[in-house]
């Protein structure tokens, strides 16, 4: 399919109207995602304020430098997605494909870092399933780690989906199945998803690793 063959779906008058509907639908989906993670963040802050001493005990065991490096990877991925969108709008398919692959690799890097972190935490008895080795004395600290695992694993699944979407998009661009700039809105929607998953991490990271550390 070439750029000249890009046509709107039959219910739309033109590609511009379709793009606006895409944006609105995507924001509606992302608003629901924000609300879901908002609930998890609220639980975490409720724990922290209700059990400050116990959560400080859990925070002291976290691998916060590894998480800081992972945050930098995600932010760099966001930049790559914005540059990919700029390339898509300019019709630069090769540049677009390059930025998409870099973003996908950064997402994989985040997942690899998170896997290493989970491995370390399991060995140290911080995660559920290895309780005898746990250095955490209080039940509330262990409960905080359970919510930590739920929040980060759910976020990790979102990163995995983002990597698959971005990788799939790069593959389509490479095969010439995504004419740009006509279909740049597809890149825009996936970039938006990436940015919001990144945005959620920007709040999870200080909540789970930084605030109150060393208390």
């Amino acid at each position, binding site marked *: 399919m070439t750029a000249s063959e890009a046509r709107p779906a039959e219910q739309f008058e033109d590609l511009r109207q379709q793009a*606006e509907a895409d*944006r*609105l639908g995507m*924001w*509606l989906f*992302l*608003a*629901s995602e*924000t*609300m879901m993670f*908002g*609930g998890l963040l*609220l639980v975490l*802050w*409720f724990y922290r*304020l*209700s059990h400050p001493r116990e959560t*400080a005990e859990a925070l002291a065991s976290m691998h*916060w*430098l590894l998480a*800081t490096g992972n*945050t*930098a990877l995600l*932010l*760099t991925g*966001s*930049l790559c*997605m*914005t*540059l990919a969108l*700029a390339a898509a709008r300019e019709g630069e398919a090769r540049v677009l494909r390059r930025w998409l692959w870099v973003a996908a690799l950064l997402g994989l890097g985040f997942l690899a870092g998170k896997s290493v972190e989970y491995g370390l935490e399991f060995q140290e008895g911080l995660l559920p399933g290895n309780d005898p080795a746990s250095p955490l004395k209080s039940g509330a600290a262990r409960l905080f780690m359970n919510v930590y695992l739920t929040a980060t694993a759910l976020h990790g699944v979102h990163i995995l989906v983002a990597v698959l979407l971005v990788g799939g998009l790069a593959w389509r661009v490479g095969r010439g199945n995504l004419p740009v700039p006509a279909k740049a809105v597809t890149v825009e929607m996936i970039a*938006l998803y990436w*940015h919001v998953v*990144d*945005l959620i991490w*920007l*709040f999870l*990271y*200080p*909540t789970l*690793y*930084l*605030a*109150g*550390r*060393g*208390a």
Partner: protein
Amino acid sequence: MKTRAVLAYLLLLALLLVQALLAGLVKPAPGVPIMLLALGQALVLLLGLVELRASSALVRLFAAASAFWLLLMFSLTLGELLTR
């Protein structure tokens, strides 16, 4: 678009560095400044990389509605704990 994105990215990394320094050097790490820095990062991301400003009024309304819901949920729930 590209220049603004690169500047926003550099600002995001700078804010991340400040957060990490606060967490590493100050004992205990101050929660309020660290979370305010996170809020600043979110705004830089939304305005610098997502182009929320260029979206239609309806799209911005959707984004604002989810932010308002979060504000309501956090303030009403944590308000009780924080005022005990």
